[in-house]
């Protein structure tokens, strides 16, 4: 797998220069999971964001009664785990592999290394995260408005 290419195809890393993508590729770690393997659990401390390179995952949220409901499903080149990066709060949902999955994971510490070297590129990544979060918020607002 060419990790730099995979990263450049993702919306999260839109606008990065090749050498920046190369460095991120070196800083990222590949993770392979089987269907039904859990990537992380709701409530865990979040220390990395993950880019889906192959396969599909489901995002599950625990209800008050302890049962779970699916709130989203993601496919390559979607990413997840970015919220904990921004707000430092525990994971807001559980992410579980629906199929065989390949991920590229970037730890917060490695992103910090990246930020020290490529400040502007890191700013772009943060802007991209903000754009995605903003888009999700807009979508949620629309859903909420249609129900009220």
């Amino acid at each position: 797998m060419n990790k730099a290419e995979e990263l450049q195809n993702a919306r999260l890393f839109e606008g990065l220069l090749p050498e920046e993508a190369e460095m991120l590729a070196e800083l990222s770690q590949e993770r392979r999971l089987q269907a039904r393997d859990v990537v992380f659990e709701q409530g865990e401390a979040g220390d990395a964001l993950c880019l889906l390179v192959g396969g599909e995952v489901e995002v599950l949220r625990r209800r008050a009664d302890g049962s779970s409901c699916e709130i989203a499903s993601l496919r390559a080149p979607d990413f997840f785990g970015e919220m904990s990066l921004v707000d430092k709060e525990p994971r807001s949902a559980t992410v579980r592999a629906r199929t065989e999955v390949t991920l590229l994971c970037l730890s917060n510490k490695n992103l910090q290394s990246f930020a020290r070297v490529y400040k502007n590129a890191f700013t772009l990544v943060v802007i991209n995260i903000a754009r995605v979060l903003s888009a999700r918020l807009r979508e949620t607002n629309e859903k909420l408005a249609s129900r009220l």
Partner: protein
Amino acid sequence: MKALWLREVRAILAGGEFTGWWEGLVEMVRGLEEVRARHEELLSQVNLTSFRAEFTQKGAIDTLYQAGELEDTAAQLLAESAELENKAYEAVANFEGQRIAVSELYSAMGAAEHNLLSAQAQVDELRAAATGAGEAGERKELQPQLRRKEEAAQELERRFREAQTTYERENARKIRLWEEVEQLWSRSLDINLSVAERRAKGRRARKTAERLFHEAERQKQMAEGLEREGEQARQAAEELERRIEQTRLTARKLFGCLVGEEFLYWPRRESSKEVYCVPVGDHAEGYNLELKARGVYLVGRQRGVEFIELLPPGDTLPEEDDKRIDDFFGRGPRDAG
């Protein structure tokens, strides 16, 4: 320990001496992995073969025990058969006595029948004479004679019936005695055949036990051989570990570095807080980065490889020339998403 510039570290890594040292080390590490794998494989084979030997030996003992049981049972049955044979001889003797007695009764019954038939013939003759006599005086003279003969014939008939009843009763007893003889012979035969079968099974079990004992012995020897091979592999691994350690330690003298278990370190001349770190082997997991053998990375003096950083790139775009952020803020509302 002298601090080095990055170019100096790179020069060391690119040099023939380092390449030779590293290739030798990698060769030995690979050899060690193979020897360790061989040692583990041999250990598992030793365990498996020893277990098989024990299992086979247990099977041999059990089979030998079964052979003994079969032989004991055969001996018991043989004794039972001998007892039945004796009983059968007695029964044959009883039968023979009865057969003679019945034969005599048969003769007596025949004689009684003969006497009866003679008497009845005489009665018939007298009766015919009396009927044919012309004068009354002659007939009167024959009548008492006829009555006596008739009474004698009746007595003979009673005796004949009695003889017949006795014969039939004793003959039935004779038949029962013969049936008893046959039953005894049949049981004796059955047991004799069973004895033969059990003896044959016992012999076979004994042979199987012997074969299993030999097999267990062969497996024990095989396990011992494997154990010796395993010991040799263990010693070879120890020797390789010693040589790897020696080779690793020579790096300090040859390249002026600090030698860790999996890394070589050079203090960084460009920054006194940092150290250059070079992994000896590839590490896909276990560190915050995927590490490549002979790659140059940076670590802090305090944290060491707990957090490894990539080297800063040589040529980066000066920040003032990077317009991407300005472009983002300069875009129209739709472009900004």
